[in-house]
């Protein structure tokens, strides 16, 4: 589904990703952990083409994302992304927020777009907020709105970039529940996260990033239960789940 080979990414002089090899099969939930600045979020930006890469290859569903003749917009339609900041469109109602992309990108009719938007909003538990504006929603609700907005494009995989980091602690749970729901439904996902408990419980595999490389990758239980890398051991002792 997603196959990354020898990925290098630089911002000017600063090398953020130093040769990443990673394969995520269909239906897998992969969590990415690591300290700030280890390149976790950058990886997601490279996967959906929001950041150019310097070397290597990213294949998503047999399409080379960074090939010059690739239509990034159609790649992104198959790949939902949820950011740390929820970025709901403030001028549109909750329903319109979700219906916008299906209407203008997928070119669905207005009624079809609204129908799919409503379906996805009910899916994430916002069925009673359709006609509200995002400003009336809590952070957790806005993040679930962002998830619904991504799901409305009917993506084949989802990328979560620290989706709960900007939330008040009491709102984290509802967003994690929503992500868990998607995992149970078999969605292919890459979750960059600081929630170790969540990573351990939901993920099939967990990758630990250290200074732009995958320091260790393993099944969740093994990675947390018996970490091999000394950096990972140090990291886990600091975050203490």
């Amino acid at each position, binding site marked *: 589904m997603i196959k990354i080979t020898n990925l290098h990414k630089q911002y000017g002089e600063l090398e953020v990703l130093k040769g990443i090899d990673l394969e995520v099969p269909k239906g897998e939930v992969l969590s990415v952990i690591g300290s700030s600045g280890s390149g976790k979020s950058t990886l997601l930006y490279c996967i959906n083409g929001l950041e150019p890469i310097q070397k290597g290859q990213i294949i998503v569903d047999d399409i080379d994302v960074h090939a010059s003749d690739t239509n990034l917009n*159609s790649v992104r339609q198959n790949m939902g992304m949820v*950011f740390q900041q929820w*970025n709901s*469109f403030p*001028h549109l109602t909750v329903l319109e927020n979700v219906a916008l992309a299906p209407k203008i990108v997928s070119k669905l009719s207005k009624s079809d777009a609204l129908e799919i938007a409503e379906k996805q909003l009910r899916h994430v538990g916002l069925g009673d907020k359709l006609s509200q504006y995002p400003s009336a929603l809590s952070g957790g609700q806005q993040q679930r709105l962002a998830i619904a*907005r*991504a799901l409305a494009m009917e993506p084949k995989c989802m990328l979560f970039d620290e989706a709960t980091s900007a939330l008040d602690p009491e709102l984290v749970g509802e967003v994690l529940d929503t992500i868990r729901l998607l995992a149970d439904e078999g969605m292919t996902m890459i979750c960059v996260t600081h929630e170790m408990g969540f990573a351990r419980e939901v993920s099939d595999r967990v990758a630990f990033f250290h200074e732009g490389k995958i320091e260790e990758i393993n099944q969740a239980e093994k990675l947390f239960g018996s970490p091999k890398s000394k950096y990972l051991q140090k990291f886990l002792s600091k975050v203490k789940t």
Partner: protein
Amino acid sequence: MESAATYFSGFSPNDLWFLGEAALRTLWISFWAISIGSILGIFLGLALSISRLLAFTLGTILDIFRSVPLIIQLVLFFNFAPIIGLRLNPFEAGLIVLTVYTSAYVANVARAGIEAVGIPMRRAARSLGMNYWQDLRYVVWPIGLRAVLPAWVGVALGVLKDSALVSILGYVELLKASQILMTRTQEAILVLSIAGAFYFALSYPISYYATRLEQRWSE
């Protein structure tokens, strides 16, 4: 035998008509300068927001138009245009200068609007598969416009009033017409009061409509 009276005669209802026509000319030149200047300015603002190099070079050029007094720009352009082979009447010369002047201001307003939307919001839009223009049309435009509409209204009202300066090129708009009438009637206070009322009548709808729009958006 009324030769003396023809130089100075009191304000008559016909003069009101004369001022009204002049007010329409003010409206006419302002309308086009604001419309074309705003469209131009939005694209310039987009250019300013794209790259630093562009922001520096283009920004400096635009700063010239924002810094040199409009009256000097008008006189210079009107007198130098024939040298490069442009035969322009006062309206055309005035419109061109006013338009460029407007666009220089709107460019900076537009850039502020684009920056108000922010990169994260635009990335979210792009991540949904929107292309560059869809992002601009459906996300940047509505959100940015809401952020900078008051600033744009300020520019528009400023240009409407600054259009009075085109009078020095001989275009008979509201101020020029007032000057003509003042010379003839010697009733400066009356004439200027009426002219002021006309300016207000032209400006008020813009700010009224903008305020209504802001109220509707804030609901």
